[in-house]
């Protein structure tokens, strides 16, 4: 079963008087273990597509399915919980709560789901070590480098065992070294645990490491290449 199915999805919206066709008929599907990247020039609809896939936005036309569930059939309150269970988000920046430490940030989402204390602590430690930041568990975001912050973000995104992780330009603010480290970890997670990753990016470094490159232009898929 596909992890994500995008069936003939359209997204139009009105920006003042002009109608913008952000997504103009996209059909895609992603399987478990995909390490895919969506590329395209600014305005091609990358972020919009990711927002739709993540359930943050509703398509004007077409259907999106995550793990077989139609998003359109979920009530708004169900959608919120559904997202928390099935989708992990990593943003370009502002991923973390500034007043909390790394482990508190990771634990935060488990708190929202009311996990018991021991389980939460155990999972947090596990995640921190899997992103290689165990010694920084007590640091606040302001005390971490950009790359480290993004790693914590990934750890947090993984906390609730989502089906896949959506990352919107995660390396945009990072230097090469940090970007490489981040990608290393993500690839490791993808390889060892079969975590599905869907990125949007401009970044060549990311494109190089991707196993699948989808190109968007004017809201349409113009190419979909799998690399081995």
């Amino acid at each position: 079963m596909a992890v994500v199915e995008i069936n003939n999805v359209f997204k139009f919206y009105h920006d003042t008087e002009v109608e913008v066709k952000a997504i103009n008929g996209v059909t895609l599907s992603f399987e478990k273990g995909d390490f895919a990247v969506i590329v395209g020039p600014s305005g091609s609809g990358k972020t919009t597509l990711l927002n739709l896939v993540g359930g943050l936005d509703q398509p004007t036309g077409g259907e999106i399915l995550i793990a077989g569930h139609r998003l359109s059939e979920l009530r708004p309150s169900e959608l919120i919980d559904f997202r928390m269970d099935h989708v992990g988000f990593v943003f370009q920046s502002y991923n973390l709560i500034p007043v909390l430490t790394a482990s508190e940030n990771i634990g935060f989402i488990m708190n929202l789901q009311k996990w018991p204390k021991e389980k939460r602590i155990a999972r947090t430690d596990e995640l921190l070590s899997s992103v290689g930041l165990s010694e920084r568990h007590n640091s606040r975001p302001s005390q971490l480098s950009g790359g480290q912050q993004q790693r914590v973000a990934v750890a947090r995104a993984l906390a609730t065992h989502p089906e896949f992780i959506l990352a919107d330009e995660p390396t945009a603010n990072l230097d090469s070294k940090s970007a490489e480290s981040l990608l290393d970890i993500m690839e490791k997670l993808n390889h060892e645990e079969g975590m599905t990753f869907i990125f949007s990016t401009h970044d060549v470094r990311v494109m190089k490491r991707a196993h699948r490159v989808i190109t968007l232009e004017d809201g349409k898929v113009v190419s979909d290449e799998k690399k081995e």
Partner: protein
Amino acid sequence: MKDYQLAWKNLWRNRRRTLITAASVFFAIFFALVMRSFQLGAYDRLFKNVIESYTGYLQLQQVDYFDDPNLDNSFEIDQALIDQMKKDPNVNDVVPRFESFALAAAGSHTQGVIVLGIDPNSEDKIMKISNKLVKYKLTSETIEKLRNASIPDHTKKLLDVFSNEAYSSEASLMNDLGISDEDSATILPVIRSHASFSNEFLTERDTSDVVIGDGLSEYLKAGVGDTIVLMGQGYHGTTAAGKYVVKGIIKLPAPDIDNVIVYIPIETARELYAAPGMATSAVISLDSNDDDDILQTGSRLQNIVSEPMTIKKWQELNALMVNQMEADNRSGMIMIALLYLVIAFGVFGTVLMMMAERKREFGMLVSIGMRKRKLAKIISIEMLLIGFLGVAAGVAASLPLVFYGNIHPLRFTGEFARMYEDYGFEAVMPTMLPDTFYLWQIVVVLMILVIAIIFSTRKIFRMNVINALRA
């Protein structure tokens, strides 16, 4: 991580803003509390002075007397009724009085006066007037003598400020002349020897003696031992005239009364006005003077008493003062309301700024799974905490001032004092200890916060996550 813990942490990410906003709340609360405390303290004192030296909290009167305070509306004493009233659990005593107006003359000085016929023992028990007999007087001779006596210089300087003052208690003498407790042992005897005033109150055996107010004594130039003549209109229009000897001089804190009062034994008054066995009012003294107790006792007594008698409460007896105080009270409240209004804007401004600044963060939180409701709750707690900080600080800062002002009321001197006394107010400003008015200030701040909370909560619920993320 509990919600309030996160809220608390959030407060300190922008320390300056949090502190400035809390400081503005602190400013408003502190100022409001201190000002109200002084204002309410002054009113309270004013009322107490008049009530406890003159009108009492409850009075028994003939039903027409209140609207028409005329001897024709006096009543005959009904001992049975009085006994019945005394059975009430809160009633201590019921003391009849005979009060009227007269022209007092001493030598060639004349003044309109209130003649208050009293039963010396019972009246003294409930009004404690003998305590207010003048004990010390700083006449010009006294001051001359004291200047040459062995007392500290700063006290000597103050003698001029308080020349011609009369004192019924050592405490106020010490207060005015700046004599501390330690010095009192050495200084007071000196002052006593020069400034003491020999004085006595009325007893039931007196028939032609009177006790007059210090202000009146000054005006008529009549001291202890002097004779004054009282002339007035008696019962049913007869002429009333009589000669009396001043037995004592009293200092009442309410200048309005101090300047015109003549205490006379009730039998003598009845004789003077040709109204045997009559009384114009009876003061009801209570065991407890709590607001609620007064009200309830008043209603209970009203049920016992029937036409043509009635029970009057102190608010009615001092209706004019109540009216004046209300006006002043209102104007004070308006000013404070204005202050809070201004502060409210400050708080709203802060809320707006804070929401704008954290837009991206809010978007992120909601998209990773935080319910908007929870987010709104955390923000609300943040605001309540800031308010609480300001309130707590304001209350704490106000307490020392309020407590000090209660024990050592602000005392005016010189022209300012004269002005106060001309209007009939004692020239002091005490404070009122924390009472419901403290709660009111807190309520107001809470209301401001509630509005801010409603506003921010709406904004959060209206937030479009995607736009927020893009902010």
